């Protein structure tokens, strides 16, 4: 159908241009914003492939969480780009190697897979994913929990410094548990006797 094609090419163009924007803009915050646009238009491409669940997840997890993390870091660090520019050359070989590997993977995957992935026809694809992920791919699913566990622990180990001077930590239960008798003392004093 023609309309779908037009929409596809529009979003594909946005995706590509935004991806170029990610690597070419000088301001890191702009880079992250371009990245967000890339995620969004990729999600639209997923919808065009009728993979609506994946599209929603892409928006929720990548746009809603991962990119927020990037943005937090980039906004707060306020780095100087010129320093990084100089170092960038040193990392070029490594970057090229990684790029080559990804390209190779893409070629392999694309040449082996069917050109048209059959969209889940009658069953909504969330249900289809649920049915296969939790039966056929049970083992990888459980492994995913371990990866998430590592991520949790790693985040804490890397970022949390023990603060010794700590802080008025509030224990709400203690506050509420106080009774009138232990908190307030009523004293009767005659005028002139008070201290």
């Amino acid at each position, binding site marked *: 159908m023609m309309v779908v094609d037009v929409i596809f090419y529009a979003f594909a163009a946005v995706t590509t241009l935004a991806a170029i924007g990610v690597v070419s803009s000088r301001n890191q915050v702009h880079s992250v914003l371009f990245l967000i646009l890339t995620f969004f238009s990729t999600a639209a491409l997923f919808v065009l492939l009728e993979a609506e669940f994946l599209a929603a997840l892409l928006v929720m*997890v990548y746009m809603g969480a991962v990119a927020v993390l990037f943005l937090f870091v980039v906004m*707060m660090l306020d780095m100087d780009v010129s320093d990084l520019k100089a170092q960038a050359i040193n990392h070029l070989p490594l970057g090229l190697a990684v790029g080559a590997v990804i390209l190779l993977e893409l070629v392999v995957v694309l040449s082996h897979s069917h050109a048209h992935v059959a969209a889940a026809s009658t069953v909504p694809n969330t249900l289809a994913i649920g*049915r296969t992920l*939790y039966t056929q791919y049970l083992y990888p699913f459980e492994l995913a929990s371990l990866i998430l566990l590592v991520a949790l622990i790693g985040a804490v180990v890397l970022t949390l410094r023990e603060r010794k001077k700590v802080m008025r930590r509030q224990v709400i239960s203690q506050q509420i548990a106080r009774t009138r008798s232990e908190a307030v003392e009523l004293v009767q004093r005659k005028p002139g006797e008070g201290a």
Partner: protein
Amino acid sequence: MLENYFPILLLLAVALATAVVMMAGSFLVGPKRNYAEKVAQYECGFAPLSRVRLPFDVRFYLLSILFVVFDIEAAFLFPWAVAFKDIGLTGLVEMLLFLMVLLVGYAYIWKKGALEWE
């Protein structure tokens, strides 16, 4: 299925247009009488002493990592919940296992005080 998404695409366009028209219209209609003091950054009347970007508070970073992890966890729960009637006891047990592993992590970050703010 795609025809259900067409209204959303159109709504996106309409919403963007609304936002742009409202801001641009207001920009054109409103007066433009600004001077240095008026556009100076808001600082209760005196000149700012330091740069705006504050030292990086690592807590926000930690917070957003925790958010990513729990968001992914939720992402796993959605198809599970949809397909629960089909996968039954197996699904229940494996999700219990999945959550147990993450519970360990949750207990760890709680114990470490990563959830404390002062």
